[in-house]
């Protein structure tokens, strides 16, 4: 019993990184090897400063071969990175992984975020080197020509310029992001709710399975984007048709994974629940659905990927704003700086949304802690 208690204390306890940060000076002095390792870790937080400075040196010092006017946006960005990581590096001992409670919620959020930045410093540093390479092959040595391959400065400047308006009276990136988010959220919500409902019905009730599976198997694999003509025909406006296409794209994987999770519920859980006096409602809602949750989240994850794809394609048809519309519109004008700017936005935007899904999953599947690996 005692060893079990210890084991749990360890599992629930601090991450290794935190332990080393909490070490007292006296233990550090006792082990010189550990002290030097700690100094190395502290220096790692400053690596982005070095690589951003190199990038800045290249940007300012190497002659441009591409015919582009430097805007100063890239230089400002690099200086921002340098300043931010100097500050983070100096204060790195302050930012710890903090367990969020109701009282210190805001502090914990800030502390965890900044701790994450400090811990990711080497990755940011590597990112700066990638920017260097990008600039060298485009703006500096012109190995890849304009207009197809603008350098980081041009793309960054486009991001700033187009934030409010894309020019020619068209909506800017900010408005496009909002528009896309509205479509994405409504389509994703409708699709995943329908998917979970269909999945549970098909997974639980044998007759629904008999009749539902063939329909699923025939309709599901059709890429939602192939249904664009039909959607435009069936729905009165392009927004609704885009939402329905996204919902369709999300619905299939969510339904499949939900029904698989529900129908694979361990029979012994159901047996135990029955001998505890459970009725059908308890068996479905409190046994089968929780048991299917890990599988449902795989479906929600796959559905999210499908929803991004469908969003971008569906927006290229009919609607007058949104990231998909923007990228299509920029391509039509051969304004590749805008295309790259949209890609940068999408990458940050979509990965943030996906991270949010993971946060929700970690909350819901807290009982699986230590066993999930994706």
């Amino acid at each position, binding site marked *: *019993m005692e060893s079990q208690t210890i084991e749990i204390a360890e599992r629930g306890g601090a991450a290794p990184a935190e332990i080393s940060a909490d070490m007292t000076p006296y233990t550090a002095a006792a082990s010189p090897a550990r002290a030097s390792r700690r100094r190395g870790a502290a220096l790692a937080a400053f690596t982005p400063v070095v690589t951003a400075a190199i990038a800045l040196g290249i940007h300012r010092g190497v002659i441009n071969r591409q015919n582009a006017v430097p805007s100063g946006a890239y230089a400002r960005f690099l200086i921002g990175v340098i300043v931010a990581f100097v500050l983070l590096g100096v204060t790195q001992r302050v930012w710890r992984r903090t367990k969020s409670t109701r009282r210190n919620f805001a502090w914990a959020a800030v502390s965890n975020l900044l701790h994450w930045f400090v811990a990711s410093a080497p990755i940011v540093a590597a990112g700066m080197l990638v920017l260097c390479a990008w600039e060298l092959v485009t703006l500096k040595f012109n190995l890849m020509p304009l207009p197809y391959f603008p350098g980081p400065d041009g793309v960054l400047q486009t991001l700033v310029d187009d934030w409010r308006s894309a020019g020619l009276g068209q909506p800017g990136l900010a408005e496009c992001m909002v528009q896309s988010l509205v479509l994405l959220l409504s389509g994703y919500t409708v699709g995943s709710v329908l998917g979970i409902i269909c999945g549970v019905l098909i997974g639980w009730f044998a007759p629904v399975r008999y009749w539902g599976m063939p329909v699923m198997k025939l309709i599901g694999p059709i890429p939602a984007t192939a249904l664009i003509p039909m959607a435009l025909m069936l729905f009165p406006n392009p927004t609704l048709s885009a939402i329905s296409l996204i919902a369709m794209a999300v619905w299939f994987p969510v339904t499949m994974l939900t029904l698989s999770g529900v129908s694979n519920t361990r029979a012994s859980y159901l*047996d135990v629940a029955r*001998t*505890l006096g459970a009725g059908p409602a308890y068996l479905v809602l409190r046994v089968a659905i929780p048991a299917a949750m890990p599988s449902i989240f795989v479906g929600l994850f796959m559905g999210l990927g499908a929803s991004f794809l469908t969003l971008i394609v569906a927006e290229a048809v009919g609607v007058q704003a949104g990231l998909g519309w923007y990228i299509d519109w920029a391509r039509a004008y051969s304004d590749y700086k805008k295309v790259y700017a949209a890609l940068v936005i999408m990458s940050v935007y979509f990965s943030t949304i996906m991270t949010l899904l993971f946060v929700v999953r970690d909350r819901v599947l807290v009982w699986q802690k230590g066993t999930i690996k994706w």
Partner: protein
Amino acid sequence: MVSRQRAAIGGAKQGLTSDVPASVRIVNISKQFISTDGETVHALHDVSLTMVAGEMVSLVGPSGCGKSTLLRLVAGLESPDAGALYVGDAPIAGPSAERGLMFQDPNLFPWLTVRRNIQSGLVARGVLAERRHEVDEFIRLVGLEAFANSYPHQLSGGMAQRAALARALINHPKVLLLDEPLGALDAFTRMRMQDEVLRIWQARGTTMLLVTHDIDEAIYMSDRIVIMSPRPGRVERIIEIGLERPRQRNGAEFLRMRAEILEMLHFAGNAS
């Protein structure tokens, strides 16, 4: 027939109301399955057994003798092809909270904490509000106070099995069905758990039907041992264990019975 003496520890010490045990009658049960390759398997053939209320009976026999099937029939999770089963005077028509079940795998719901697992029987029957006070009593009964808010994956095998025991007991079942509940535990934990189950049995007086592979466990725990034989599964013999409780695991009489049962199961050669 029931030759047990109740130990000093009574229900009052646990602060729990004693359950009302019920007799179990199994009358001329037959059950067959169609195996995956389409053959008919006679799991049970004309099996009869009567358990007095409050009795502890073990089912012993080689694999394939239908012990677990018999247990599932009493639980109401399967229905017999012929014959009938009764708890008290009522025929068994399906699973019910009056017949608790425990498997070799604790089968705790992994998405619920220990406390929520234990109270799931109350939730399932919609009586949590009025019976909530009992949850803590049962957590204490199995000594899991410190782990009430842990998830099953954080528990050791013995702790998980104790939680499963509390969950099975919270509905005050008249009959508790145990399908090799201690089979997966190490020898020491198993012996401790045997005493724990006995303590609860003596305190609460629940009728218990125990499937086991372990002859020692059967002799140590039960009032009677039912020896079954396979293909088709039927009752071979019923042995009354008249030993006084608490029993000595290496007493002369204990060892004599062990040898006798092993002989009966044709394992005499391996036993010595």
